[in-house]
């Protein structure tokens, strides 16, 4: 592998020399560069294809493009984008020129699902989900959700029922790089994982990359979910508000200085706690749950070639219970009032300052300074008051638990449009990570102690360069190298990760593609194997627990048999090294001090085939996705060192999504999911232990079982949940009002009320044995919401 990498890097250097020579040869051309914007909002549009003769370039993340045309020639530029009307511009130019082009949204686009590539036409393993389509997909409790829409794509497995965890091509939940405007988000869950952080109203674009990773991405093994926020409308103040069963939200955007600067603000809060509060007045037991999140973004057009944006995200979940009781204090007969309060909360905060700078007609650079944090806290406090109102100190007790991660970093990347056949993107970045993997403190009675895993600071730097190259009309290549330098304590890890993605246009309707990517992930997630509370600890790679690595090979074929239809078939094989799991018997509860000793290191393999049939246009549109896949793990100290199936190894996974829009006043959507169940370890061998040598009344975790019997599993993940299937349906009733558009949404989640297993747990039988019980969470759930978008 090392020799391969050396050859690859040498070849890459030669390639750059070739590019430089090519640049000199084509001096008789001039550059037309600039930005593509939406006509009404002046929002910059990414992934617009700009064509000239048989050449084309694609606007970058900032909406920038640069294309070479013949000097003094009559030039016809075509600007095409799936969601916007085609635009032609005729120009005759004698020198490099900078222009701004505006596009108008398609009138009927709401009726269409345009699952499209973001950069190259149908790039292997890459799917872009237009945000307007996500809003149409049926959702739990009617809450539109980006992650839940992502889960409906082939190759993406959902975790537990209703949760927003997702698993791409056999990888773990921690192996997904989730970027919000370029900033890493560590936890995407609200409401114990049932909703995700991102309100679609604030989002401009969503790209999911499952394989064939461009060199600009790094740090995770299995996928990249690149979410970009809106910049805000630079011409008019617009917005919308919606009221649903769970939450209400409001989103406003508009100009600060018309045409030059803009703002965008969204805010959302649940109100279950407020609604139930009146029913809990004077009750001994109180409780509540809420989450909120808010996004704010300011965008300033400093001049024609420089743009500055500032964005902030803040979101937090809090679950609280309060119990009040009276307790007799020993034999003295004194009655104390005891109050116990438990708080469980977690939240994300991100902030970023981004400067987009166009240096010349060919070079566009982004600089980002970013900060992100995620923390998870459990606080328990018990206070006792005697009849005289005095605190009974020996009865007081408190317990605090914290796990957190904070990142502070800076990065820059540049897009260099060398020619119409070659674009080079290079970048550099540095992030300082601050970890508190786990910290617990106890005080009360005779106890006062703190146990904490040591705070760990790590440094992660990267350097990448990639080239989009089209040597012939039928071949396009994206290739590059991502290098990572990661240091923790005195230990340094250096990694060179070559990537290549090749597309061959077989004829006018079909393509063949293949890719190869190596990835490195210097961070791990310690995930409890329980019912799914977000008790996941982010821990750094260390000398004992080195970074995860992967190699993925992908091959794909796609064909467009007609204007409306597209079919693709992709096969992948992925090897992973350095994946971790808790050791048997370990969990976050007993891993505060020595988490590195409680982890097993192993490897994984996943492979499969994804079928994806889309109908892109028409009154009825949608897609069918089917994945046949295998995913397994092997750890020296687990399952006797034998391979075992991964928890989310879903052999079959079928997804159907349909959108129907006969008129602008009404649309309906339908989704259906069917997959093999999750894997679970259950004791299927029960026998008598050596009598009398193990305590008869040994305390179990939740309850005691008869210790004379041994409960063993014949292998890890030896049972499979029941087959999961569910159908959802959603109706939108739209009406144009004087000041905007009103929408009533009616959604029915799981409309035929399939009882899918959420998790399994053990129940004690009459003979103090165990029986397995399935817990199902969501039967049919109807919901409705009201939304108003004002002009």
């Amino acid at each position, binding site marked *: 592998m090392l020799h391969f990498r050396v050859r690859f890097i040498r070849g890459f250097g030669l390639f750059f020399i070739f590019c430089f020579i090519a640049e000199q040869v084509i001096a008789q051309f001039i550059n037309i560069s600039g930005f593509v914007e939406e006509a009404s909002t002046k929002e910059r549009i990414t992934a617009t294809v700009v064509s000239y003769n048989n050449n084309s370039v694609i606007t970058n993340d900032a909406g920038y493009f640069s294309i070479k045309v013949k000097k003094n020639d009559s030039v016809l530029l075509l600007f095409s984008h799936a969601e916007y009307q085609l635009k032609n511009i005729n120009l005759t130019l004698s020198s490099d020129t900078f222009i701004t082009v505006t596009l108008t949204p398609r009138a009927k686009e709401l009726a269409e699902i345009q699952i499209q590539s973001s950069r190259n036409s149908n790039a292997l393993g890459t799917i872009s989900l237009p945000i307007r389509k996500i809003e149409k997909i049926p959702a739990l409790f009617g809450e539109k959700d980006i992650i839940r829409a992502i889960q409906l794509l082939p190759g993406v497995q959902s975790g537990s029922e209703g949760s927003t965890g997702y698993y791409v091509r056999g990888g773990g939940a921690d192996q997904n790089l989730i970027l919000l405007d370029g900033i890493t988000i560590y936890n995407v869950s609200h409401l114990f994982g049932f909703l995700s952080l991102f309100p679609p109203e604030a989002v401009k674009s969503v790209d999911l990359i499952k394989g064939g990773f461009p060199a600009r991405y790094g740090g995770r093994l299995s996928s990249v979910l690149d979410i970009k926020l809106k910049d805000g409308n630079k011409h008019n103040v617009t917005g919308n508000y919606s009221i649903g069963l769970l939450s209400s939200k409001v989103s406003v955007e508009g100009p600060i200085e018309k045409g030059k600067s803009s703002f965008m603000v969204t805010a959302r809060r649940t109100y279950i706690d407020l609604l139930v509060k009146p029913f809990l007045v004077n009750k001994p037991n109180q409780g509540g749950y809420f989450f909120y999140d808010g996004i704010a973004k300011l965008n300033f057009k400093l001049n024609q070639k420089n743009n500055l944006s500032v964005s902030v995200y803040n979101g937090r979940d809090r679950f609280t219970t309060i119990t009040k009781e009276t307790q007799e204090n020993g034999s003295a007969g004194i009655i104390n009032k005891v109050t116990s309060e438990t708080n469980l909360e977690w939240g994300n905060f991100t902030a970023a300052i981004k400067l987009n700078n166009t240096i010349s007609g060919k070079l566009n650079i982004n600089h980002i300074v970013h900060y992100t944090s995620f923390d998870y806290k459990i606080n328990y406090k018990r206070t006792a008051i005697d009849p005289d109102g005095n605190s009974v100190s020996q009865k007081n007790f408190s317990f605090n638990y914290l796990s957190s991660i904070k990142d502070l970093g800076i990065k820059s990347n540049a897009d260099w449009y060398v020619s119409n056949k070659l674009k080079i993107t290079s970048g550099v970045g540095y992030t300082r990570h601050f970890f508190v993997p786990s910290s617990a403190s106890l005080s009360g009675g005779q106890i006062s102690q703190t146990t904490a895993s040591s705070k760990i600071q790590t440094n992660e730097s990267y350097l990448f360069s990639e080239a989009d190259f089209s040597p012939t009309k039928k071949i396009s290549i994206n290739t590059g190298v991502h290098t990572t330098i990661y240091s923790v304590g005195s230990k340094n890890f250096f990694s060179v990760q070559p990537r290549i993605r090749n597309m061959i246009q077989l004829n006018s309707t079909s393509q063949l593609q293949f890719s190869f990517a190596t990835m490195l992930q210097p961070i791990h997630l310690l995930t409890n194997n329980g019912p799914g509370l977000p008790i996941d600890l982010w821990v750094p790679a260390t000398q004992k627990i080195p970074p995860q690595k992967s190699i993925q090979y992908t091959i794909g074929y796609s064909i467009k048999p007609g204007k409306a239809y597209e079919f693709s078939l992709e096969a992948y094989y992925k090897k992973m090294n350095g994946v971790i799991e808790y050791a048997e018997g370990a969990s976050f509860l007993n891993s505060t001090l020595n988490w590195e000793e409680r982890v097993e290191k192993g490897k994984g393999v996943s492979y499969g085939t994804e079928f994806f049939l889309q109908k892109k246009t028409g009154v009825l549109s949608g897609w069918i996705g089917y994945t046949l896949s295998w995913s397994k793990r092997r750890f020296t100290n687990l399952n006797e060192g034998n391979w075992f199936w991964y928890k989310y190894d879903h052999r079959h996974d079928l997804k159907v999504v349909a959108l129907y829009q006969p008129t602008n006043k009404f649309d309906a959507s339908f989704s259906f999911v069917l997959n093999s169940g999750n894997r679970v370890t259950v004791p299927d061998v029960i026998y008598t232990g050596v009598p009398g040598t193990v305590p008869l009344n040994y305390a179990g975790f939740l309850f005691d079982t008869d210790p004379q019997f041994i409960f063993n599993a014949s292998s890890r993940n030896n049972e499979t949940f029941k087959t999961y299937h569910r159908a959802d349906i959603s109706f939108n009733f739209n009406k144009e009002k004087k000041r905007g558009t009103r929408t009533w949404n009616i959604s029915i989640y799981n409309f035929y009320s399939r009882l899918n297993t959420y998790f399994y747990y053990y129940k004690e039988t009459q003979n103090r044995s165990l029986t397995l019980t*399935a817990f199902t969470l969501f039967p049919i*759930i109807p919901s409705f919401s009201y939304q108003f978008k004002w002009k």
Partner: protein
Amino acid sequence: MRITSFLVMIMFVIIGCSKTADVPISYKKIPVVNCIFSQDSIWKVYVSISGSADNPKGEAVPNASVRIFKNNQLIETLLYKNDGYYLAQTNTKPEVNTDYSLEVNIPGYKTVTAKDKIPPAAQTAFLNVDTTLSTYSYSPFDDPAEVFVATISFNDNEPIDKYYMITPYYYEKDELKIYKVTKATIDSLLKYRYIAPNNNDSLILSQIFDSLFYGKRAFEAKLKSIYFPRSFSSQITTFTAVGTFNTYYPDLFKYHKIYSSDIYFKQLQDYYSSVFGEKKSDITLTNYPLRLFLGYYPGGVPVNFNNVLTRIDAEIYLEISTLSNNGYKYFTTYTQNIANRTNPFTELKNVFSNIQNGAGIFAGANNIRVKIR
């Protein structure tokens, strides 16, 4: 009315969603063989077929062929006694550091085999026990209580790997004076404690009417060769310093080279258990303290009579066992299996087995019993 309907609907949606259903499991039927052998006892092997949730004990196997080999030479063919137990026909007992193997043939199943040896005993010549009064909260939710902390240490410098299991017991002195041993107890001893029904055995008994008696002197004299009836044993569980309980940490023991001082014992009468430790051959074990939190007063144990804590004279013993590596893995994983089997946050911990073509354990143990004064 609208608001009320709205709230009722929300509560219905949020709370009324969950349902549960029992899931049938197809339990595997495999041979189970258990045998912990020591030089104190004659050969005794338990043979059964694994059970199910409704019948966790499984089915005893009365028609198996159970044979014991010493250095690959057949020395015993055991006879079926009852309830799945096969006993030696002779009074020969296993020897230390000798290879023994087991072969069990059950009709319809593959031949079950296993092998192991009895390890050398712990060296306890310099056993030291210091007992001091202390105050401690057994868990975050318990009131602080006065306990006696016994710090126990011993030297074991034998240059071989050793695996220890230490179990405290107590015996009330009153009961020691005239201890009534019923026929059922003797049966229990026969069944569980590897004591052969032989007048020449080390257990000295006298019989009056339907009951069997022995005196304290006889009991103490023969202390090294009998086990107590379990019903009179101490009852202790472990607690860690952070308030979690009921789990053992072999890794932690290794870190401390032998015993963790973070292992605490809860009040004797509430729980009991054993602690485990291991040392590698290159480690000389010198005065690594084992801290036991003992809910006893010197020379006695507390008994709650009508909410009044009363001391009863008792004697407390430590059984210091060395186990073979197989036995050590078995007992440590067994306790973890019990502790974690209802834990929703962890995977099930499988109990180690060295039985080929089956489950269970065939392991040697060497036991020493010492009194804490």
